[in-house]
């Protein structure tokens, strides 16, 4: 299948360039360096996962790419343009879903479309398409409080897609879900990504999740947060849950996990 060519050699075009980013927070106990000297090129349509112990600055890096936070020094470029704030070409999926509770599922998706200038009937119809994509068309008129965590996150993904971003930034989107729902959403996300290719920057603390999704896994170390290692995942797509049983997957998992665990021990010290 076309699986092979979808691998990391697929595009050499750099979509996002992270150039020597440093982020310092002023806390009560003095300065805290959250990120130091982080540089990374994210290619067009590439799926990148970032793993690392909590406090390694994963989310800080995502917020900087999203334009929700400014780097203390260094720069981020998206399509060659310096990032100075949020932009619709960079969509975000948050761990806490961040659905507007006063809007129905459909209106949540329509919010993204309306911000893009799609109005009225057209917005409604297009919203339904995105809801069908995540298999939630039936729940269009429900309020978020009536949905399970997994369903909420699917709505959030549909809403992020509806904004038609070039880059999808996901901050531990499945972190709050149970193991089964998480596996299911991973599969669905991969399917969606294969249908509608996007550049994905996905943060997780789950090493298996990172390997099953990503073309490259970025391992970050803590205090200060920096890139420790980048592991190419040369498993062809489409990947399924069976992929997790293969010896090669296990090998990669052990390799990445041991590095993450080392970092975890460092943090505990």
């Amino acid at each position: 299948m076309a699986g092979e060519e979808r691998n990391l050699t697929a595009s050499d075009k750099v979509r996002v360039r992270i150039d020597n980013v440093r982020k310092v927070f002023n806390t009560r106990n003095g300065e805290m360096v959250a990120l130091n000297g982080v540089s990374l090129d994210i290619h067009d349509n590439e799926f990148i996962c970032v793993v690392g112990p909590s406090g390694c600055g994963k989310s800080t890096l995502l917020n900087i790419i999203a334009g929700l936070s400014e780097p203390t020094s260094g720069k981020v470029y998206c399509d060659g343009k310096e990032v100075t704030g949020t932009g619709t070409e960079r969509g975000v999926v948050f761990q806490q879903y961040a659905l507007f509770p006063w809007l129905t599922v459909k209106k949540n998706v329509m919010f993204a479309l309306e911000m893009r200038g799609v109005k009225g009937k057209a917005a409604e119809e297009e919203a339904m398409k995105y809801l069908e994509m995540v298999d939630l068309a039936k729940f269009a008129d429900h309020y978020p409080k009536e949905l399970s965590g997994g369903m909420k996150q699917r709505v959030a993904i549909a809403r992020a897609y509806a904004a038609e971003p070039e880059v999808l930034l996901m901050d531990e989107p499945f972190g709050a879900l149970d193991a089964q729902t998480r596996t299911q959403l991973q599969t669905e996300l991969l399917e969606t990504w294969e249908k509608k290719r996007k550049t994905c920057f996905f943060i997780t603390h789950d090493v298996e999740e990172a390997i099953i999704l990503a073309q490259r896994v970025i391992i970050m170390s803590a205090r200060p947060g920096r890139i420790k290692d980048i592991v190419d995942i040369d498993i062809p797509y489409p990947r399924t849950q069976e992929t997790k049983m293969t010896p090669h997957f296990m090998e990669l998992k052990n390799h990445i996990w041991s590095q993450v665990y080392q970092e975890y021990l460092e943090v505990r010290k």
Partner: protein
Amino acid sequence: MPENGQNDRKGDFLMEKKNNKGLADRIPAKVWLLISFLAAMLLWWVLSIIPATSRAFPNVFKVLGSIKTMIDRNVLFKDLSSSLISVCSGYVLGFVIALPVAILMAWYKPVRYIIEPWIQFIRNIPPLAYVPLIVIAAGVGRKPQIIVITIACFLIMCVTIYQGVINVDETLIKAARVLGATDKDIFVRVIAPATLPFILTAIRLGASVALTTLIAAESTGANAGLGMRIRSLNNSFESAPMLLYIIIIGILGITIEKLIKTAERRLTSWQEKREI
């Protein structure tokens, strides 16, 4: 069945509670209300026959009879309308001032740092205490009444709305921003609806404060009003019409509260948890 002892016990406990609830639930709410009403009437009747309390609590027939007395004296409707005018004007004014001030406080830190301590300070002073100052400044009549109610309503509504605006979930604002929302979009489409439950709570609390401040407001030398009349009846020891007026204020309060609560439920049914 859970084998675990602790779970088991927890289960039993829940069952027991459910059964107890079942007994209370079998009687419809309306019947409970009737029982509650009858119990209060019984208590009232007891109070009206105990010599020590009978002067303060004349029986229900005397109180109902005083409706006619007050109409004959040509004051009942005058008092009602006078009080309602003061309460409504003060309440609306209080809200109109509280809304922008609360938003400014939430958005601009200097405004917050300057105003908030004073709101907290004045909020804890009973309005009755500063009424004389207002009368000295504004004279007697309608004006000081409205000012007192406006101040009391403003304070409680401002604090409540302010809490609502600063408690808007930051992630929702971020989510809107990354979807391309402008500041105006965020204000109209995120902050406003997210604050709505707090605004409705403020409206409800304000209504209750407006009524409870009425007595203080009408001690400003009013020539009519429910609160003013209670004070003047006090001078002639007419407890039956006094009790009537107290009950009227109570009925007004609970009616307004029920109306606002209904609106609240309609407008904020999307909320995960409902406030009390």
